[in-house]
């Protein structure tokens, strides 16, 4: 039963697996992992990491089901949204990398070591990166080498270095290379000046050369390495990651709200009030804000204690959104990098290992403010396809309609022929009314825009 409900990505580690029962996720700890699990809990490491908010809390449960391998069943605290490394902005990736290294340092103090360091095991939970895989620890055997060193460099260091030193969009390479960006590829893509950074020189450039020359060699005799070299290695990785920096560009979108001309200050405040009123009326359990920019409107539900996923396709916007959320300790807001016109697909073994964006985001309410004109006029999507899409992903919809006469819509049309004869308020309401009931309709004073609250039929 538990094997049957095993989660698609949970097959690599013989220590246990994750399964779902009645919509709740559990993790089986196998007998194979008994010693390590007992040490993790008995040594105080688990408690220390949970207190430091570095490891996801769990409780042991009895589901009345066992198989021959079962040692324990644990129920981890639910994570609101599972995001993947290629959906993180630079600082999210950097914070996740530094958290992983802090976990490894702490584990060493307690006689354990991270046996793997997959970026997929780190998740944003209450605004901070935490390790969700309780079975990632092995007993430290005294060797001064880190088994997960290669994985850390490929999953964290290589994408961070490429984002900081070359182009922030190269984070998307992690989507193709599921086990992290190959170091020889990272080394060849990084600019020559990155060799002057001794951390990158060692952990990316020379490391990739060593991999090329030594891969597949059989290693014979026992040797533990120089005392302190493992901690020195982790220190060196920490210092290398800390020094990597990227500043968001002032892209069109990241400067949108302070500079944009469609709203006067008064109209913007009125729009905020309307959104707040509609969210309260929707009585929603969570919100997915699509095209959230830097999260100005996402902060309305999140400040009301409603878990909010704030999605944008511009890395600068997501970076600014995350830095703001981090600075203000916003636990209910999760900024994510994704393009709704090309959402993250499912990848990996049988296309089930890493779920698509739409499979993971199960919103109660979708907020689509100033988005429809981009989908319809910018991406040529007919209104009926847009309405049908929203009806499949949410129960409640807060949506803004921007007519062609609006200056932003005009900008979209300035370089293309106006073939969008059906794009008007009447057709918009007609198409959406096929799937939704219009519960509220509010015009934004001083603009040509209208905001609706719609409820699924």
């Amino acid at each position, binding site marked *: 039963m538990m094997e049957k409900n095993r989660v698609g990505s949970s097959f*690599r580690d013989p220590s246990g697996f994750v399964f779902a029962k009645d919509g709740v996720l559990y993790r089986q700890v196998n007998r194979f992992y008994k010693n390590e699990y007992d040490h993790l809990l008995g040594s105080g490491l688990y408690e220390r990491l949970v207190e430091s908010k570095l490891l996801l809390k769990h409780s042991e449960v009895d589901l009345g089901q066992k198989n021959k391998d079962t040692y324990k069943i644990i129920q981890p605290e639910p994570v609101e949204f599972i995001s993947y490394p290629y959906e993180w902005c630079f600082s999210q990736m950097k914070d996740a990398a530094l958290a992983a290294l802090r976990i490894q340092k702490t584990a060493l103090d307690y006689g354990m070591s991270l046996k793997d360091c997959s970026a997929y095991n780190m998740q944003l939970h209450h605004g901070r990166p935490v390790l969700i895989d309780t079975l990632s620890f092995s007993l430290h055997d005294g060797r*001064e080498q880190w088994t997960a060193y*290669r994985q850390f460099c490929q999953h964290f260091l290589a994408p961070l270095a490429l984002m900081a030193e070359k182009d922030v969009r190269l984070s998307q390479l992690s989507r193709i290379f599921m086990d992290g960006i190959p170091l020889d590829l990272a080394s060849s893509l990084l600019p020559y000046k990155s060799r002057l950074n001794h951390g990158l020189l060692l952990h990316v450039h020379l490391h990739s050369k060593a991999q090329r*020359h030594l891969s597949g060699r059989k290693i014979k*005799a026992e*040797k533990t390495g120089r005392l302190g*070299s493992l901690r*020195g290695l982790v220190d060196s990785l920490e210092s290398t990651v800390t020094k990597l920096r990227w500043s968001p560009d002032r892209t069109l979108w990241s400067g949108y709200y302070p500079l944009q001309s469609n709203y006067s200050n008064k109209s913007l405040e009125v729009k905020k009030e309307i959104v707040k009123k509609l969210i309260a009326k929707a009585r929603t359990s969570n919100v997915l804000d699509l095209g959230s920019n830097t999260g100005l409107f996402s902060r309305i539900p999140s400040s009301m204690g409603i878990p909010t996923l704030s999605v944008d396709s511009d890395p600068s916007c997501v970076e600014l959104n995350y830095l703001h959320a981090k600075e203000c300790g916003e636990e209910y807001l999760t900024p994510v990098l994704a393009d709704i016109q090309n959402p993250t697909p499912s990848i990996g073994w049988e296309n089930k290992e890493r779920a698509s964006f739409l499979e993971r985001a199960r919103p109660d309410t979708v907020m689509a403010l100033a988005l429809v004109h981009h989908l319809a006029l910018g991406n040529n999507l007919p209104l009926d396809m847009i309405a049908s899409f929203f009806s499949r992903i949410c129960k409640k919809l807060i949506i803004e309609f921007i007519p062609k006469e609006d200056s932003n819509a005009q900008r979209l049309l300035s370089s293309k022929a106006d073939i969008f004869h059906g794009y008007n308020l009447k057709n918009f309401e007609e198409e959406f009314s096929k799937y939704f009931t219009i519960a509220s309709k509010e015009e934004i004073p001083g603009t040509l825009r209208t905001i609706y609250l719609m409820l699924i039929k």
Partner: protein
Amino acid sequence: MRKPLMLLALAQALSTPASAYIDPGTGSIIFQVLVGGFFAFAYLLKTKFNLIKKNIWPFKQR
């Protein structure tokens, strides 16, 4: 040419990592041993420096 030979010689002399379910990469493990002395030295310097700072520095550290 000399460098790969040295790395190869070292590869022959070192240990196999514990039975990890992920491939640590032989090259990555040997590389850690190669540069391990450097990391060990850096770590030793850091710990000694912290110790000296703790014992000699007259002002209380925050």
